[in-house]
């Protein structure tokens, strides 16, 4: 979830080797998006990037689904921040997802704030930003929009749909809703539903945003202000859940920013300064209402709920999809038992599933970092799936 966590640099040459392309696709009023809430959105826009080249038989397309605060800039440099993509450990030349082999697609989710339609977009009926008039969206709604994009790109079957965290939930939703349109599915550090603790942390974040006087009932954009303080606090609280106790201790301990205590409420400890920085840099790149809508979509996510509470039923039609599920030992946001619940349901559905719990003390964000076991597991899974597909 933390796109600032990546640390790999990229040369201009590497960026060219990525063969980056993309843009924003607009669906006309003839293609409205029916939402789970019952509302309908017409004229939606989906911003996306692609890397690599679609092969002749259109069998090498991979859709990457991003996490809560991620975006479509998975590999190439981000146009506004200039920072490298959020998953350069996994996507790029010589990486498990390689533009030399795969046609990689990543789109900004519906409800997002990086070019796809969301609460910061202009409501055609009022000519002003949607704000809270934007309909509540869900993970299945996001996936429906992705499916429209994939179809518009002329791809009948995705070779793989891949994602971590909220992206992993979209992967599971793809398997439930469009099993015939995916050959393999890779779900990392994710869960089949949001737990009470997950919802609780998100509620803290939303309350922080809404308690900021500059939030103005969600109308801040029209009024020319921004609830930066509230959003920063939301990000600070959430960021703790992406790390782990040992990782925080190792990185910061009780180290001070300066010699001696301030005997006041400045950021005495390095960990305080770090969190303040995380909060402050986040507000530059994220819209507060988007944060409310996307965290809501996550909280509403419960894949089994549409299947009488039986998760296995969600995967009943996905028996022919090759699945790989990964979790991390120190992830307490979506801990290993969540991954195991997915695996159990896939086994019960008779699907072909592999599962690895990766040793890491880096918490939930481990999926964004250089974890050699993750890298080799993903490469092994994708390469063998490619051979199996070629043999068909």
């Amino acid at each position, binding site marked *: 979830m933390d796109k600032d966590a990546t640390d790999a640099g990229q040369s201009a040459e590497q960026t060219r080797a990525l063969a980056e392309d993309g843009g924003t696709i607009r669906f006309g009023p003839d293609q409205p998006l029916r939402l789970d809430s019952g509302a309908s959105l017409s004229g939606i826009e989906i911003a996306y990037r692609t890397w690599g080249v679609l092969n002749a038989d259109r069998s090498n397309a991979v859709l990457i689904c991003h996490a809560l605060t991620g975006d479509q800039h998975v590999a190439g440099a981000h146009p506004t921040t200039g920072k490298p993509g959020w998953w350069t450990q996994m996507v790029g030349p010589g990486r498990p997802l390689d533009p030399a082999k795969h046609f990689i697609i990543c789109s900004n989710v519906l409800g997002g704030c990086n070019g796809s339609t969301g609460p910061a977009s202009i409501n055609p009926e009022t000519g002003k930003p949607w704000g809270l008039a934007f309909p509540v969206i869900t993970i299945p709604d996001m996936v429906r929009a992705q499916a429209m994009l994939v179809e518009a790109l002329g791809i009948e079957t995705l070779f793989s749909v891949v994602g971590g965290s909220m992206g992993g939930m979209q992967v599971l939703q793809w398997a439930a809703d469009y099993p015939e349109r995916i050959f393999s599915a890779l779900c990392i550090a994710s869960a089949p539903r949001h737990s009470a603790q997950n919802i609780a942390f998100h509620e803290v974040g939303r309350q922080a945003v809404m308690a900021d006087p500059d939030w103005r009932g969600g109308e801040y954009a029209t009024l020319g202000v921004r609830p930066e303080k509230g959003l920063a606090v939301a990000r600070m609280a959430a960021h703790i859940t992406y790390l782990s106790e040992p990782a925080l201790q190792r990185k910061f301990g009780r180290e001070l920013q300066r010699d001696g205590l301030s005997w006041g409420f400045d950021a005495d400890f390095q960990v305080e300064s770090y969190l303040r920085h995380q909060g402050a840099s986040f507000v530059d790149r994220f819209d507060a209402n988007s944060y409310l809508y996307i965290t809501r979509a996550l909280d509403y996510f419960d894949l089994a709920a549409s299947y009488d509470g039986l998760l296995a039923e969600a995967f009943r039609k996905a028996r022919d999809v*090759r699945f*790989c599920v990964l979790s991390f030992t120190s992830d307490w946001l979506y801990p290993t038992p969540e991954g*195991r619940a997915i*695996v*159990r349901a896939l*086994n*019960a559905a*008779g699907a*072909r*599933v*592999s*599962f*690895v*719990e*990766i*040793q890491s003390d880096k918490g939930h964000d481990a999926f964004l970092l250089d974890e050699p*076991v993750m890298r*080799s*597991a993903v*490469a*092994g*899974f994708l*390469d*063998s799936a490619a*051979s*199996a597909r070629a043999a068909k």
Partner: protein
Amino acid sequence: MSPSEAAGREDFRAILGMVSPGARVLDIGCGEGALLDMLGRGKQVEGRGLEIDAANVSLCLARGLAVVQGDADHDLADFPNQAFDYAVLSQTLQTVRQPRQVLSELLRIADRAIVSFPNFAHWRVRWELLSRGRMPMTGVLSQAWYETDNIHLCTLRDFTSLCESLDLNIEACAALAEGQSARAINPQRPIENWRAEAALFLLSRKGLAA
């Protein structure tokens, strides 16, 4: 002991002979996937694995195998009834916490189970204990008592009586010895309980149509 990664192990060859082509097989404690690989090539089985070690699971993935990280004591419950034709537990039964429960789980999730284990009544084991008064260290029991993962060693006779109490059919049995090919035996004969260094059983639930 964890199942050895040595491909071409004698019990692997014996297992290969027992499995019917195209069957659905779950290999519990599949290691680096050597047996599953062999079964896939030799018998075109639809194979799945359960393996405790993450690095091994990762190697299995690279081989194109579908393997779930987990162990026999805790994670067999995740598999539905009769999901497989065969469940294989090779040289692992003596290392699990609940061998009786694991054995009945095998025959819940699969129609047939293939189980191998070292025979603690082999004459060399008996002799070591009798003559030296120490925990035996033989070819198949190669580690000192304080190092070994073997916590539930049993004899051929112990195992056949467990099968009886669980109401399981013994469809076939073979004696295994290092460097020799498997030898079909009648496990009920007392002499085999002296002679077999290790044994491999093909089990099924009573009442299963052949």
